[in-house]
């Protein structure tokens, strides 16, 4: 098994994909961190809050995480489908028994790459935040660590979900199109259709909302409590809802609830990928 994991690392680091997808992660993280905190420093808001510095860095870190998870999903999706695309799947499966061992090795190796993505996201979003808001934009160090850590978790889980999904569909084109279509278009259509119905509560349990919630349900309450201080209990629900609508997550939903829901999705797709690739005919 160690050998198989080492083989997966070699496959990753001798090809371009891992850094090609890391570039947009770094750029988007930096821009979200910078642009978002610039917004936070706007004098009008400063006046509204009595000239206080806003810890918008926490919010924009969650914003950037929710932008870049899609690249983590693509990284995962191309892990297995790339083997079918380049027809290396045959040789790969001939070197491992049972086939599930290959998927297991990929899960471990790609978790590590996803950690790199997650750390890069946290660092570059923070760097952007520093430029935009200075060190006051981040609240306490512990808060920064928690939000950054939640972002890393979300990115790792998206990578694993993508990996399982790719192992199920085998076609890289299908995997990429379906993931992009779902994340960028489909889910927002579904949740806005549901929002005016009795089913609106379901929206929080959709994969995209759940993954956004991992970070945002942590950072938005933190932001509010930092800003409001002792007045926190008096902050209106509307203010929370407004922030959630921009930065993701939903009012009153705990971040660990989102984490559990999304981890469930990731587990389902990994299990599905495991089952289908164990049984499938490799022709």
């Amino acid at each position, binding site marked *: 098994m160690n*050998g198989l994991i080492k*083989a997966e690392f*070699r496959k990753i680091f001798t090809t*371009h994909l891992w850094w090609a997808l890391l570039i947009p992660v770094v750029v988007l993280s930096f821009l979200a961190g910078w642009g978002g905190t610039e917004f936070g420093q706007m004098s009008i808001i400063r006046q509204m809050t009595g000239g206080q510095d806003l810890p918008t860095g926490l919010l924009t870190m969650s914003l950037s995480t929710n932008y870049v998870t899609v690249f983590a999903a693509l990284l995962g999706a191309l892990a297995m489908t790339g083997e079918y695309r380049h*027809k*290396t799947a045959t040789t790969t499966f*001939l070197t491992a028994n049972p086939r599930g061992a290959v998927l297991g090795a990929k899960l471990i190796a790609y978790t590590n790459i996803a950690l790199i993505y997650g750390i890069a996201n946290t660092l570059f979003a923070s760097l952007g935040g520093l430029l935009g808001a200075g060190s006051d934009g981040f609240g306490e160090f512990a808060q920064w660590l928690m939000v950054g850590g939640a972002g890393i978790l979300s990115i790792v889980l998206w990578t694993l979900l993508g990996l399982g999904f790719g192992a199920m569909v085998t076609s890289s084109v299908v995997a990429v199109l379906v993931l992009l279509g779902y994340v960028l278009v489909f889910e927002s259509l579904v949740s806005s259709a549901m929002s005016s119905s009795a089913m609106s509560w379901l929206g929080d349990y959709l994969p995209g909302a759940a993954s956004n919630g991992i970070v945002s349900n942590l950072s938005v309450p933190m932001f509010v409590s930092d800003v409001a201080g002792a007045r926190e209990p008096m902050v209106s629900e509307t203010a929370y809802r407004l922030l959630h609508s921009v930065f993701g997550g939903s009012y009153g939903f705990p971040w660990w609830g989102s984490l559990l829901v999304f981890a469930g999705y990731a587990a389902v797709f990994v299990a599905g990928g495991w089952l289908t690739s164990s049984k499938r*005919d*490799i022709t």
Partner: protein
Amino acid sequence: MHDGSGRILVQGLNKSFGPINAVQNLNFSVEPGSVTGFLGPNGSGKTTTLRMILGLISPTAGGAFINGQPFSRLPNPATVVGAVLDSQGFHPGQTARTHLRCYTAALNLPDQQADQVLELVGLSSAATRKTGGFSLGMRQRLALATALIGNPQILILDEPANGLDPEGIAWLRGFLKSFASTGRTALVSSHLLREMEHTVDNVVIVSRGQCVYNGDLDQLRAAQQSRVLVRTADPATLVEALRQSGLTAEYLPDGSLAVPGTDSKTVADLALGAGVAVHGMQEENLDLEQIFFQLTTGQYSGGAPQGPPQPPQGAAQWGPGGPQQPPQPGAPPPGTPPSPGVGQGYQQVYPQQDQNNQGGNGGYGGNA
């Protein structure tokens, strides 16, 4: 665990893809110490069978065993069996060496093994080149190097000669012979017997997913059938005279008769006795390629089987009876394109394309 025998055993193997029966009740074994050719026209089920042996396709029925175990039960399988099924299996951005080092890592082998197999297949000079720029022949060699990386006891190659130049084929021949001479097992598929004739010791010939011959190549060669081609003014009378002496005859497209299992003297005497003028006579020996063609030509026949298979004398072992064609004296000579409507033989053999094999090219000489 496996028994280390180096034997491949295929038992009652069946595979259908929806309505297509790709492999039907296949039985054969491949013994160590020899090169076994796995021969059959395109679409006869060779690749499917090899992939079933390697656990990549699950059989609809039956099983395949390597060293007494199904592939899925082999620990560290690449050290037991190496295979080339597809010469395209490389990431174009990897070099030959980085490609191979993914597999030395997977098998817990020292990295120098990658350079050793590259040297073995004559690719050392291309070690640092990206595989995306490799020619087909280089890909075949790199695929072979990949198969050999675990120093396996059994080697399975699917159509390895495709894309190799004559020099490459000669090299492969020498390689396979020396591989087998160390007591190891080589199973090599091809749709061209000619390509493999001087490489293999044993053959398994399949047609339409069924085994039509399994045995020694020399015995198949020894069983070369001869037939007499005779042109006469009155074929009907001659056929009757032949029939009375227990001989059969077939009409050929050019109007002459083909009389199998006899010699020209016998036919001449019979013609004289029947008072039939003979315009020309010729004895014809079927070579190996023709026997192969006749064994497998029934693949594209939609007609009913022409009686039970008649093994050539001395043939080691025949596959179970089935719709495949035995060597038929009426079958067209190899290489002749089908010309519908002339002669019985053609009508029997080429009435229509078999539905299972649409797009087939007549099973002879096509590309893989």
